[in-house]
């Protein structure tokens, strides 16, 4: 994954996302199902980059509450990309249906 990311330069002070391998695959809790056990436990946190660095390098960031945390610099977006999705026709049908049943519209 990391080597597929473009090698980008970030400047000190940029808001970035860093990644840590919290538990490597094979060192996970005994209770996790097999598919999960085969993956590492990954951790991401955002913070202000302390020194100029390239994607993939070990860096230090200062988080929202002022904690200094180290991890691998990623290109993961720091903005929010979730949205309202696509229009779902079935929901429009539900609205029409309940109004028709209650108000006896045809």
């Amino acid at each position, binding site marked *: 994954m990391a080597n597929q990311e473009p090698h980008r330069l970030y400047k000190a002070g940029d808001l970035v996302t860093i990644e840590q391998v919290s538990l490597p695959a094979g060192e996970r809790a005994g209770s996790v199902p097999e598919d999960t056990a085969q993956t590492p436990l990954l*951790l991401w946190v955002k913070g202000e980059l302390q020194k100029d660095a390239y994607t993939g390098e070990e860096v230090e960031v200062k988080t929202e509450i002022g*904690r200094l945390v180290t991890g691998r610099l990623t290109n993961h977006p720091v903005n929010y990309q979730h949205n309202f999705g696509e229009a779902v026709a*079935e929901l429009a049908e539900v609205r029409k249906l309940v109004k028709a049943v209650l108000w006896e519209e045809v």
Partner: protein
Amino acid sequence: MKDLSYEAVMARQNEIIRQAVGLDYDQFEKADHTFDYEALMASVPYDLEEVCEILDKMHVGKTPLVYLDNITALARKVAPEGKGAKIYIKDEAANPSGSFKARRAALSVYEAKRLGYKGVIAATSGNYGAAVAAMAAKLGLKCIVVQECFDSRRVGQPEILEKQRKCEALGAEVIQLSVGPELFYETLKLLEETGYYNASLYTATAIAGVESLGYEIVQQGMEAFGRHPDYVIATNAGGGNLTGTARGLRKAGATETKVYAASVDLSGLHMASDHDFNRKSFTTGHTGFGIPFTVQPDRSDVPRNAARPLRYIDNYMTLKQGEVFFITESLAALEGMERGPAGNTSLAAAFALAQTLDQDQIIVVQETEYTGAGKHPMPQLSFARDNGIDIRLGDPEEEVPGKNIILPDHPSKIKARFWDMASLRKSALKRLVAAMDDKITADQAQYLQEELNCDLDFLGQALGELGKQLA
């Protein structure tokens, strides 16, 4: 440098938690393998009126109790002649941070401040994170929220991504993790590193805060309809919502009100599975949390869980995902109230239950939650569709979690389904008596009856099935 391996951190769990909640749980344990639940709850140094005053200072609570006349009318349209109980809803979305969880966080964060902690940490992917962040912001404490957020492809549930945004908007540092129960391990490491307070969902202060919800339902109900409600329905996951509400109802005198749990049926999906993570369209309020936490509450992140729903549940209803999305859309279309889906699980249950009750009966649905990008029927269903889930109108009875979501093609198809309470009690009993001798003493029997909310005949019979008996 401390050993930060999984085993080493988990081995330090008791000491870390003791430091992080400022409470020695050993004082509640008894030699006969029981524990004193009411003593744990009494460790909160405020009575219910004082709790309400503290919440009021933090601008939490006093949310409207709304009569859903059109939803009630819709239920009556499809119910047998003379049936269709009145449905009221407590509009908890009006709390700071947009859910009842503000009540659960308020007292905890207030206590953290009073005890001198500099910050609070909460491990949650739910509305509780934003609630803790909001209360910490109000009291000037630092806040870290630890979320289970992405699968190993770094694909995240839109509902959880929105909760991350809200936590950050309220000033929290958010730690995002891939799928797995080791969320708790990560939280312990952070508690140890920072010395912050563990704003667990399951402390006595968290549950005492929720008691205010039951209390308000009784007060507002007396004004709105002049008596206690016949039924209160709570969406159930970790059990704190139901436990706190039920305790508040009792403290306010509504001892005859029946308390029903409601969860979305996600049978068949494994909650810790990387593959299943994004095949569910509800990230909370579902059976994957609700059932295990009901039968084994002490699986939580504190030594003894103050949320013990089995003590209070009269009946446990399950809903299909499609039914909850349907009722969420109906709430917008018929009542003009656009709210988040997960909190409407109890509303879908009320809609089904109302059709089986006489028209003079009163049901209170005890929460709503805020809605927004990601946390809304449209993005949640779009996301499901993108993950290969079949979305259609039809008969929700045919819904298979992880395969399809079937929105009812008629409101009459939202059905009341009940989980077998006897089997829940027996599962819980098996764990409770595991360390006890074969002869159960009178004190132990009293404790077991309270934990299971059952009579002595049931207990005697269930013990017999486990090869034990009443002394």
